[in-house]
């Protein structure tokens, strides 16, 4: 496991450990006092192994629900979701979610929070070193024994990212992970996430309502409609990495996305 990771980090032509995700005809509704509240309407989306896809849409449109379905936390009312060819019915540590709130356990130190996935699967004793590696990767070395309340928002979200990475996910699901951070921390962490994705080769699925973030990070941006969410447009961003925020092409793509969302009056 460690050897494979080193290979990927060295970029020595190892096969990408990412898994492809296929979302086929997925509709979903919530039960709201006995009345169905449709949130997703016939979503079809194929994500290639190792691809970085962003879902962009107005708030409350159901994009986070789609992520919960991909994570296996809920079952779709209709349609099928599969990862690496296998249908998703339960959560699995190969598909880890980083939520908008870090949701670290306040009674655990940072180290033990990051070790959570290994501990839950009974692998902690044999892979203690992975926890230290993950903390180092996200720049939290030295904070092992801190408690979550002692961390800033950005540090807490880094710890949550480390908690995900320790499990070597083949799909990393990012549910507005930077939504509550200040803009400087957000910019720094966007760059870090891209770097991690490029090094490790997992498939990344990001939900965001930050148009700039979507295009800076992703290779493909899916624009969703108001609830119930339908796919309104698909914008491919083939700019090579590392990208530059001032790139005129990014501005152009942002304009396109805003037009789809009906927000281009001020563009």
């Amino acid at each position, binding site marked *: 496991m460690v050897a494979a990771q080193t290979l990927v980090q060295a970029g020595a032509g190892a096969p990408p450990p990412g898994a492809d995700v296929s979302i086929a005809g997925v509709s979903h509704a919530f039960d709201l006092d006995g009345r169905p509240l449709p949130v997703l309407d016939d979503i079809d989306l194929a994500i290639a192994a190792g691809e970085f896809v962003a879902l962009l849409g107005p708030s409350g449109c159901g994009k986070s629900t789609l992520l919960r379905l991909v994570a296996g936390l809920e079952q779709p009312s209709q349609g099928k979701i599969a990862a690496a060819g296998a249908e998703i019915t339960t*959560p699995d540590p190969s598909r880890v979610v980083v939520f908008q709130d870090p*949701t670290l356990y306040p009674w655990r130190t940072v180290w033990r929070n990051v070790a959570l996935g290994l501990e839950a699967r009974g692998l902690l004793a044999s892979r203690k070193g992975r926890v230290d590696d993950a903390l180092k990767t996200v720049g939290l070395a030295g904070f092992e024994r801190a408690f979550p309340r002692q961390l800033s928002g950005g540090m807490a979200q880094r710890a949550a990212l480390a*908690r995900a990475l320790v499990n070597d996910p083949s799909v990393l699901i990012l549910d507005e992970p930077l939504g509550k951070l200040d803009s400087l921390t957000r910019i720094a962490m966007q760059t870090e996430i891209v770097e991690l994705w490029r090094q490790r080769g997992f498939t990344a699925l990001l939900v965001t309502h930050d148009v700039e973030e979507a295009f800076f990070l992703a290779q493909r941006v899916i624009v969703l409609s108001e609830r119930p969410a339908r796919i309104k447009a698909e914008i491919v961003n083939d700019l090579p990495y590392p990208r530059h925020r001032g790139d005129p092409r990014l501005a152009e793509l942002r304009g396109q996305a805003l037009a789809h969302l009906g927000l281009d009056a001020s563009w």
Partner: protein
Amino acid sequence: MSPFEQTGSAADFDRPRLQADGSVLARGALATAAWTAVAASVTLLANKKIGFAEPLYVGETNAGFIGWAVLLALATAVGALWPPLGRRLVRAAPWLVVLALFVGIWDLLTAKLGLLPVPFFAPPSALVEVYAEDWPRLGESVLHSLRLLALGFLFGAAAGFVTGVAIGWSRGLGYWVHPVLRFLGPIPSTALLPMAFFFFPSSFSAAIFLIALATWFPVTVLTWSGVASVDKAYYDVARTLGAGRSFLIFKVAIPAALPHVFVGLFMGLGASFSVLVAAEMMGVKSGLGYYLQWAQGWAAYANMYGALIVMALIFSGLITLLFALRDRLLGWQKDVVKW
């Protein structure tokens, strides 16, 4: 030092050593003066003769006051040079002065002037007499009370914890247990005393059951609400990381509920004290409650005060112990309940 270690408080601030601290001297001297005045008044003024029996332990009590005044003087001198003691003395000084006033006036009103009705108010020397003469019986009562309390509280707390986790986790169990909890829980356990003495083979086992019941109720309710109020996102996180059911219960739900559980234990401990004392007064023929009842029956009011003071110290000590346990287990939590 890493940036998040901002735990230093003003109390950790070290003063330069071996330099007499003026504020310690001033406050220590005030406390010493107050207690010297008490010692002088107690020793030099004549006791009023009350009743036929000569009061015992008067000389010993007076010597105790003098010794205490000397001890305070020494503490002042040492504290002025040694900050840890000095800080404690400075903090305690106002209380020491007030206590000196209280004891001085108490002795004046009872031993010296005989102004308070006699059997109900005893002079300080009578309290000394109680501890000196009756300590074996008092000590035995303490041991009996502690044994009863420990058995009842531990059974009740364990049962309450298990019940609370079970109904917090399983809706099916909650359906059956919840109505029972709502019906039986609010009955004061003391109201069940007569019935329990009737049903149980011994008053001792009846008392254990009632103390356990009194503890069980708050521990159950708070454990249950603790488990029920765990942030659902905590479960989502654990599930996506591959956690199974027992991990969700033992590593997520229970640790997250512990702050609530602790409040339940605190409330349960308080309830267990009152049931303990009531049971000892009504049927169990041992323990501090029985001692109180006995002292009252013999109009031995000094013994009653003596037992009450012991009771206050023990119960307060037990709560302090519980909070110390909380601070060890829940160090991550900011203080919610203060003691």
